[in-house]
């Protein structure tokens, strides 16, 4: 006689044991340490901090280790942990103008006050596998790089245009920025919430959307006005003090895009802006974010909304990879009951049709 499928609990426990074993891999090989991950897989850690919405290199490194290098799984681990933390309040706005710059480039001007600073970039490397890195022996003696950061604040490229009135002034929301982790997203969303959503959004999704705008699906004619990477101070005003104090320093990547102009009867034509910002070194993400931000401003700037990247509901509702992966992968869960319902109906439909055919033939 048939015995109902039992043993879900045992199966889960066994799967967890197997997972732990697979994660560790060959025990003869030393386990990877969190310092190694945060020091040597820096950009992976940066991505997990960005999309995990938490600036904590140690937790991000732990998440990467626990997730066996699956980035979305690591992001998910960080999100699920951060959501349990108490909130003390919001920091003061970051002053990225006062950044200690490590890298800073502009594609709009050949030379800019403060100069172009390449910094640590893959940009001009030849993508040839470097077999000298293959061994675990000590790295070939690294040459000491020249001083790599500027301690004096560098003027913003877009301000140079702004002083001449050639680019629109950035605007702040009247009521202070919203927070989509504390209030459900409502449409239409303001630019503040859109930017928050994009900052947490999946890098791959934003990259593809940004790319689509370059290929004609909602063109915005962008120039990389300025990309800067470096350290900025975080200030916080405790209620009991009443004035701001610096509580730490974080690395961020900021991208300001210059886009095609817009004018009106009252205002002569001006360039428009797209903005991207993320934790750590995340140029691809920040640039894609700036392109998508500008595309999503279509309505505000009186452009016809025809492309996916201009469609706020489409972009914001599908950018979160933790949500997306959960819902796609939930198809692995049992759907016996729903499938049974479909089976019963399909059989009945077929029977009705076959019966009708038989009767017609008789």
């Amino acid at each position, binding site marked *: *006689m*048939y015995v*109902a*499928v*039992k*043993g*879900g*609990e045992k*199966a*889960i426990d066994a799967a967890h044991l197997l997972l732990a074993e697979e994660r560790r891999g060959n025990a003869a090989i030393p386990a990877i340490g969190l310092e190694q991950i945060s020091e040597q897989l820096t950009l992976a850690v940066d991505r997990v901090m960005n999309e995990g919405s938490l600036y904590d290199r140690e937790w991000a490194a732990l998440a990467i280790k626990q997730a066996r290098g699956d980035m979305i799984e690591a992001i*998910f681990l960080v*999100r*699920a*942990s*951060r*959501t*349990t933390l*108490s909130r003390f309040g919001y920091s003061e706005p970051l002053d990225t103008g006062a950044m200690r710059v490590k890298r800073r480039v502009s594609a709009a001007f050949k030379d800019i006050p403060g100069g172009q600073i390449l910094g640590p970039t893959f940009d001009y490397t030849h993508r040839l596998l470097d077999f000298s890195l293959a061994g675990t022996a000590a790295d070939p003696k690294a040459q000491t790089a020249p001083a790599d950061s500027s301690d004096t604040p560098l003027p913003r490229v877009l301000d140079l245009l702004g002083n001449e009135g050639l680019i629109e002034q950035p605007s702040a929301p009247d009521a202070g920025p919203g927070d989509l*982790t*504390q*209030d*459900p*997203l*409502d*449409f*239409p969303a303001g630019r503040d919430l859109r930017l928050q959503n994009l900052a947490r959004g999946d890098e791959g999704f934003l990259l593809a959307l940004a790319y689509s705008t370059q290929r004609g699906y909602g063109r915005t004619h962008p120039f990389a006005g300025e990309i800067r990477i470096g350290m900025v101070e975080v200030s916080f005003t405790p209620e009991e003090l009443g004035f701001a104090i610096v509580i730490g320093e974080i690395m961020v990547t900021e991208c300001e895009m210059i886009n095609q102009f817009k004018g009106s009867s009252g205002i002569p034509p001006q360039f428009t802006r797209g903005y991207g910002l993320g934790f750590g070194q995340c140029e691809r993400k920040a640039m894609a974010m700036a392109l998508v931000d500008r595309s999503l401003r279509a309505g505000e700037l009186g452009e016809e909304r025809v492309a996916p990247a201009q469609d706020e*509901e489409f972009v914001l*509702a599908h950018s979160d990879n*933790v*949500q997306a*992966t*959960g*819902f*796609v*992968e*939930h198809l692995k*869960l*049992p*759907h*016996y*009951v*729903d499938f*049974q*319902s*479909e*089976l*019963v*109906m399909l059989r*009945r*439909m077929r029977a*009705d049709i076959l019966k009708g055919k038989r009767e017609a033939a008789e």
Partner: protein
Amino acid sequence: MTAQSYNFAYLNEQTKRMIRRAILKAVAIPGYQVPFASREMPMPYGWGTGGVQVTAAILTPDDTLKVIDQGADDTTNAVSIRKFFEKTAGVPTTERTGEASIIQTRHRIPEKALRDDQIIVFQVPIPEPLRFLEPRETETRKMHALEEYGVMHVKLYEDIARYGQIATTYAYPAKVGDRYVFDPSPIPKFDNPKLDDCPALQLFGAGREKRIYAVPPHTKVKSLDFEDHPFEVQRWDEPCAICGSRESFLDEIVTDDKGSRMFVCSDTDYCAERQRAGARP
């Protein structure tokens, strides 16, 4: 962080208060989808995060919890969610419908009638019944506000024109309290009649979509239909092969590769209780 460092039932009290406010509003406006600031949970979106948050917000140490998926207590995801609350809340759990004060469910309503001292919490993937007819939230909210449900009836009519019957078999839309059309979650339409005038409070949580809605006790829930095509539920030609029930929703079990199959109750507790009482096929 250890399990001990988490609050009772995982969520912090601020979050629970926010969710309870949404639940109160949902109860006050039956069938209306209340937006709430859904949190990331330690299980994936689409795997019951909405139901888990609702349960976490209403759970007290005196509660007894039952968790089912596809009607069964021992399906993997039900096991996982039950373990989560055992670990984070330490509440007693049960597999018996009659002994539970809170029942969290995915895709089924238990066969045993619920009582007024019970709460059933549904896990909801897509809370918006109009979503597959109109993908935009801004539009569907307007349609609900204006009680503009014509497209849904057109869809059901097109089914009849094309297939001779309404081809929706689960997540079958119904109207709550003569006002809001709602999605009862992907329960089979077989379970829809149980929603109507139910003595238990019925709560629905959609985590990824950030919505909570409710059917308060003894509220009218009417499955959409037409006068000449009245709503009807699935029926099977044979009884449960284990307990002989002709009243319950049956799962089809494929027993070999030659087309043999048998039908057994999807509600494992219902089936086991009947067996204890001596019921046989």
